[in-house]
């Protein structure tokens, strides 16, 4: 039996005054303990979707249940279990790190627990900065403060809206490690990103959103197996003018004046069979390069095609 979703979105939509459709009717179910990555270009509706769940945006229709609580009626119970790290570096510049994080815990109705806050700040390498004014911190450190504030009340569901936007590579790796640790602690993480590498690295499931429409939701591995492509570049010992007829079942093309044979196919396994068939057809080769398509290629295919269709229409 499938586990009850901790976030259950049904028919959720948002049309702003003026008629802009930010989110078309959307269904989405999130399972406990998973890392779900919502991918989409800028303005796709990612932040709107998060805002609708967290209470920052008023829905035009639909229903959201968090841990079984309807967010429109039992919002106190729902919000108490949600943490949100916004995309913008929205921090009170006049505040200091420790009081700011302590304030966040109290705001969510949790009793003071200095030991927990200390552990949290240490885990984010913020303990040494606890008495510093937030305005004096670097962008990356400010982002960590936002994460600490979102985690201060020990949420079960954490939204990270573009968590690594504008941070350096080292910090990005730290963030990924932190998200992994949160998952190990049982926290469900929903992150939006347009760094596909981030989703590829961490996510269990992927959702692709574009122009306010959730286009697909799928297990990352299944998605990459289903939509992923293999490309092989075979350098020939002697140039070919035409592709031999016995290789007709493969998706092949000649390049570099017949010196290179390009293959597009479903997987590495087929490349091995192709090589045997090449030898059988008397076609010798001197080099081979294979490239598997990344999640980014799949994303570009999905979203790019959509945009091209939109432009053509």
């Amino acid at each position, binding site marked *: 039996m499938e586990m009850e979703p901790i976030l259950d979105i049904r028919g959720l939509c948002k049309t702003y005054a003026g008629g802009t459709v930010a989110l078309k009717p959307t269904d989405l179910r999130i399972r406990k303990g998973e890392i779900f990555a919502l991918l989409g270009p800028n303005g796709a509706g990612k932040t709107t979707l998060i805002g609708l769940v967290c209470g920052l*945006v008023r829905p035009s229709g639909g229903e959201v249940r968090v841990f079984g609580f309807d967010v429109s009626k039992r919002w106190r*119970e729902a919000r108490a279990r949600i943490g949100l790290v916004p995309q913008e570096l*929205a921090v*009170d*510049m006049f505040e200091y790190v420790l009081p700011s994080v302590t304030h966040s815990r*109290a*705001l969510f*109705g949790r009793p003071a627990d200095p030991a927990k806050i200390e552990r949290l700040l240490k885990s984010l390498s913020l303990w040494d900065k606890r008495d510093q004014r937030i305005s004096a911190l670097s962008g990356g450190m400010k982002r960590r403060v936002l994460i600490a504030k979102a985690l201060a009340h020990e949420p079960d569901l954490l939204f990270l809206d573009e968590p690594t936007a504008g941070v350096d590579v080292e910090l990005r790796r730290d963030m990924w490690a932190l998200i992994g640790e949160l998952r190990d602690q049982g926290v469900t993480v929903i992150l939006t990103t347009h760094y596909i590498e981030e989703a590829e690295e961490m996510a269990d499931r992927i959702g692709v959103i574009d122009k306010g429409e959730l286009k697909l939701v799928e297990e990352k591995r299944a998605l990459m197996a289903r939509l992923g492509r293999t490309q092989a570049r075979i350098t020939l010992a002697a140039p070919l003018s035409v592709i031999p007829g016995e290789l007709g079942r493969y998706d092949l093309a000649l390049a570099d004046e017949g010196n290179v044979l390009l293959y597009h196919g479903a997987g590495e396994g087929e490349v091995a069979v192709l090589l045997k068939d090449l030898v059988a057809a008397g076609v010798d080769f001197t080099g081979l390069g294979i490239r598997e398509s990344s999640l980014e290629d799949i994303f570009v295919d999905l979203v790019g095609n959509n945009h091209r269709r939109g432009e053509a229409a």
Partner: protein
Amino acid sequence: MTGFNLRGTFAIYRFELARTWRTLFQSILTPVLTTSLYFIVFGSAIGGQIQSAGGVPYAAFIVPGLLMLTILAESTANASFGIYLPRFTGTIYEVLSAPVGVAEILLGYVGAAATKSLILSAVILATARVFVDYEIAHPLMAAGFILLSAVAFSLFGFILGCWADGFEKLQVVPMLVLTPLTFLGGTFYSITMLPEPWRTVTLFNPVVYLVNGLRWTFYGKADVDLGLATTLTFAFLAICIGIVAVIFRTGWRLRT
């Protein structure tokens, strides 16, 4: 969490008051300095030429008016700034996504603004004692009226802070509406000193009732009746609560 979020309320309240302590000079000393200047100019310099107003020595006469001037200005400014600043910086997301509702937010923001006004009121009354020897005839009524005015105008300030979409707008109403109404509201004179038709016109100025209501609690006499002043202040409070209720129901300027 199912009920009222007391910790969340105190968190907002403490956060707002902490801002006051961080800007102590601006928050406390500036109003004290301004009020002292009013006492020097109006109480001592000009007041020396005027024997009494409304049957009260002039220097003492202006004490309730100056106090009300500070309460209106500070309550409005503090509450409007308190809610506008997080809107401006984007930190409002935290309050809006927290398990706090209209009651917690109002008690936090408006409570902190009103508290600061009450502290200032005490400081100003103490400052006034340096310049003039005055008595408060009905201290409990005075405290109640000061509290009522502070809460009502803190609510008004909260509405202003929600409405404003720039720092300029935040200043417009206090500078162009509240200050003129207060100066023309009998702070420095009794409306009986005005010729007609200005005496009648002045009665349409709501601040007249606030200033004279407070003055009545000080000296047992004023240009308007305390009951009428209190009723109108409660009415103003009720209108502000109604507007705030609409703001939260519709999410106007808070939620998109």
